């Protein structure tokens, strides 16, 4: 069990799943870099977060719902949570399209687990809404997804606890990463500044 002072941002789960170093740059080094993708995401979320709640056909929809879990050690905000008589459903808005990686599902599952802990209830399903395709995808919180979510939260805490940014590893993903300039994956990897200095001295 974590305490209030241990809580880390829930959004970090996506970061560590995407790249350990990106996660460390954001959550240890406190760097923030915006690119087209993050700007689009931010503007989309500003829209989602503009209202507080509405009730329609027996469904009360709340926007920007604060979340936390002492079990996972996470704190965050759900874009949308739908409250019905017998169910609670978190919904997360994403700018892109559905991906084969579990990044978005893990984030949504963590939100559900926070709500379960806070409301002392069981949540079986949530939804991801993708801006590009304008499709809503239902996600079932099964055992496998819950285990992956717990494991990811544990790895996230472990990484931030080390206070060390792991070395860069260059992959195709780096090209879409807004931190590519701060990270310098290709420029720093295996580069010796000592050899560079020697080169200057002997020229």
């Amino acid at each position, binding site marked *: 069990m974590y305490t209030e002072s241990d809580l880390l941002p829930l959004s970090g789960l996506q970061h560590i799943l995407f790249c350990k170093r990106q996660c460390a740059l954001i959550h*240890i*080094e*406190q*760097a923030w870099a915006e690119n087209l993708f993050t700007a689009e995401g931010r503007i989309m979320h500003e829209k989602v977060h503009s209202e507080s709640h509405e009730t329609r056909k027996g469904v009360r929809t709340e926007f920007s719902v604060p979340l936390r879990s002492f079990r996972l050690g996470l704190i965050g905000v759900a874009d949308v949570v739908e409250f019905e008589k017998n169910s609670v459903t978190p919904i997360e808005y994403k700018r892109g399209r559905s991906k084969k990686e579990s990044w978005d599902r893990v984030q949504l599952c963590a939100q559900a687990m926070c709500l379960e802990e806070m409301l002392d209830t069981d949540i079986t399903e949530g939804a991801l809404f993708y801006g590009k395709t304008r499709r809503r995808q239902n996600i079932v919180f099964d055992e496998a997804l819950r285990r992956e979510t717990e494991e990811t939260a544990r790895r996230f805490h472990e990484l931030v606890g080390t*206070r*060390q*940014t792991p*070395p*860069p590893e260059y992959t195709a993903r780096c090209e879409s990463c807004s931190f590519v*300039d*701060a990270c*310098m994956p290709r*420029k*720093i990897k295996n*580069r*010796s*500044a*000592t050899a*560079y*200095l020697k080169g*200057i*001295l002997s*020229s």
Partner: protein
Amino acid sequence: MKKYLNTLYVSTQGAYLAKEGERVIVRSEGKTLGGWPIHTIGGIVCFGQVSCSPFLMGFCAERDVSISFLTEYGKFLARVEGPVSGNVLLRREQYRRADDKEASAKIARSAMIGKISNSRAALRRAVRDHSDKLDADAVREASQRLTHSLKQLRHEDIAADTLLGVEGSASVAYFSAFDHLILNDKKHFFFENRNRRPPLDNVNCLLSFMYTMVMHDVRSALETVGLDPAVGFYHRDRPGRPGLALDLMEEFRPFLADRLVLTLVNRKQVTAKGFKKSKSGAVRMSDKTRKAVLTAYMERKKDEIIHPFLEEKISVGLLCHMQAHLMARHLRGDLDAYPPFVVR
């Protein structure tokens, strides 16, 4: 690649800067002189009677745009910064290294290698381009003395005191040749020695002004990457002195400031008429000259070069930022040493 952003220099006396939506606007005598979207601006420098609205200051702080206030003549007064950026772990590492004499000397050595190598490049370039117009032997001799200084820096575990000595003699050698690099109107543009408080001749006046401009850029770059500009490795702590900014500036002096001053004089972009000597002997620039210098500096920052360590094309205006970044990456342990920018 990070985009190079312009610095907004405001020297119109009585001008007022304000925020209008996402734009910075400049007003004077009830008229709007111009407006620029904030995302196109990297920094703002105000000369003399120029004021800013508090909302603009807050807006700039939020967007990492620094604002410096200088006297009409370019003497630094103050700057406005937002909350301390970056993180405490990096600054703690910076302080730990600064407290460690040997670790500091290692970084100071890198900065010195950058400075002396770039000083020598400036001399070599002058000989290459103008051997017919200057005393090539004298300049070559000075450049050889710099080669000797660089040799003395070969030892990786050099002591701080030795570094000071090497820097001292390198600086003497470089400035002894500096006058030879001035090729125009030697009656009004000459260099005997470096004086700055106040500058006593036209060339020192230009140098001081350029160093202040480069300093603004270096400080902003350090703050943006989360380093403390006050705590240096070569320039030890002294209250009010931006030690790390001075460290980082060393490698830029010959390449950015000195070279631009020489270009301005040699290409007659500034003339003796643009300088005034006060009764005390202090030399000041006219508004027109200051504008010409700033315009030339802004143009220079648009030039593109290949960064010798990163092996990538970047604009001159981004160099300070890149070097601040490399310093942070070294302190964090990503790089085995600090790689200074050197002219190839």
